[in-house]
């Protein structure tokens, strides 16, 4: 990403650089939105629905999303299932191992706020947003596969709107 980071600075100095930058932005955003490879990361109930979404009935591949087992090659963590206090550092580590640009979908109530384990549980992390930055929250316990697909499409829309210049700060 090193080159890409500096690219906007150089291009803007060129004559017509703005135009190049805009089209470049479009291409990169489209590419990133349309090829979200997700990490095979599932902890609890939502993992089963994640599996179902990848299966024939709902088919993640349709959106260009395929699973990768290693975080280095993934663009997206779908945090499917409860994140406990013991698991939280691992999730952070997985996130740190991912290459920029990386995104996180919090799937299900547990990852948003603890869900049914918010009260009375001594070991559940109450929301993963204080472990990793989250781009999209999907409610449900577990969310239906359609909810997940809708969340992913929503995330794609969000990615398509991002600005190349935002990258420099990241």
């Amino acid at each position: 990403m090193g080159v890409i980071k500096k690219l906007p600075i150089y291009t803007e100095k060129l004559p017509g650089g703005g135009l190049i930058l805009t089209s470049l932005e479009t291409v990169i955003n489209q590419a990133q939105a349309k090829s979200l490879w997700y990490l095979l990361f599932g902890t609890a109930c939502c993992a089963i629905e994640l599996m179902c979404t990848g299966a024939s009935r709902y088919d993640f591949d349709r959106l260009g999303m395929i699973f990768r087992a290693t975080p280095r090659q993934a663009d997206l963590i779908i945090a499917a299932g409860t994140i406990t206090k013991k698991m939280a550092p691992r999730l952070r580590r997985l996130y740190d191992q991912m290459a920029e640009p990386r995104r996180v979908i919090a799937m299900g109530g547990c990852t948003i706020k603890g869900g049914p384990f918010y009260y009375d549980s001594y070991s559940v992390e109450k929301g993963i947003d204080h472990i990793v930055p989250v781009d999209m929250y999907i409610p449900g316990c577990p969310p239906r596969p359609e909810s997940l697909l809708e969340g992913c499409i929503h995330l794609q829309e969000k990615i398509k709107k991002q600005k190349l210049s935002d990258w420099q700060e990241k």
Partner: protein
Amino acid sequence: MAELRTEEFTVNMGPHHPSTHGVCRLILTLSGEKVIKIVPVIGYLHRALEKICENRTYAQCIPVMDRFEYVTAMSCEYLFSNAAEKLAEIEVPERAEYLRVIMLELNRIASHLIFYGVTAMDIGALTPFLYGLREREGIIDLFEMTCGQRLTYNYIRIGGVSKDIPPQFEPKCRETIKTIREKLNDYEGLLNENPIWLVRNKGIGVLPADLGIAYGVSGPVLRASGVKYDIRKDDPYSIYDRFDFEIPTRENGDCYDRYLLRLDEIKQSLNIVEQALDALPEGDIKAKVSPNFKPPAGEVYARVENSRGELGVYIQSDGGKKPLRVKMRGGSFNQLQVLPEIGTDCLVADLVAIFASLDIILPEVDR
């Protein structure tokens, strides 16, 4: 010439690893590819369900129990309801019992279909995984039609079931049974006799019967070792004594037998569902249970046979509207305990096969 030095090295398998079915961590000591020592580390999914149950009323415990073993959530619900009914001595209407059996068995099939897919995927065949989940969708549709959720049903309640089945349930259920029967041929054709599948599974991870007994292993894993022990027959609960079904057993206790046994169980479960559908009586679906359900003080340990062995719950009540203590017991807990015994001295690839064939899911272990 310098002497060659070999070194054992430690590999962390998990907590995030594609073949640990969730978040189990195995600390492996390897010599080359050979596994010399396995130390399972659990607790990555310890959600304190037991503590939560202690602070919920009995009716509220059931959605929590759903999360205990989400692959066969029906059996958890049944288990808790059964224990509470035993405590309060509630008679469950006939129709409700039949509906419960139908749901339990359908859920067992769904769980075994996941097993089929996941095991195949762990051994490297991706297509069976999708085939297994495809048929599972049919069962999930039935559940959704009946109780409105795909995974956490909250259907079986204390004293009966929450809703009667819709009229289109029965034809659809029979159709699903027919489809699964047909597709089982495909499943068997894909893997059963496939030479690669055979060499990967036959004779791998043999669990001798006495070792299984010592470690309290139950369910398909134990039956594959030749011990004919099934709570549905040996300690009958619900109305299982009214159905005509067999308990399949196998002798060798290796991965292949465990796999075959589960396919056999799918067939038996299909038979039970059909019998239950045929004999489904009319009547009430729920006994009268007051909203402020307060069982008398006492304690009970109830158990059911789910797709991973004995699922048990111990409830102690002090006469209040919340249980004093709920202790859950899942079959996977014991099966993970036995993994270091049968998984050592094999290759990493075998360990994956063994782990898959034990059909361990982590919420049962960690709770």
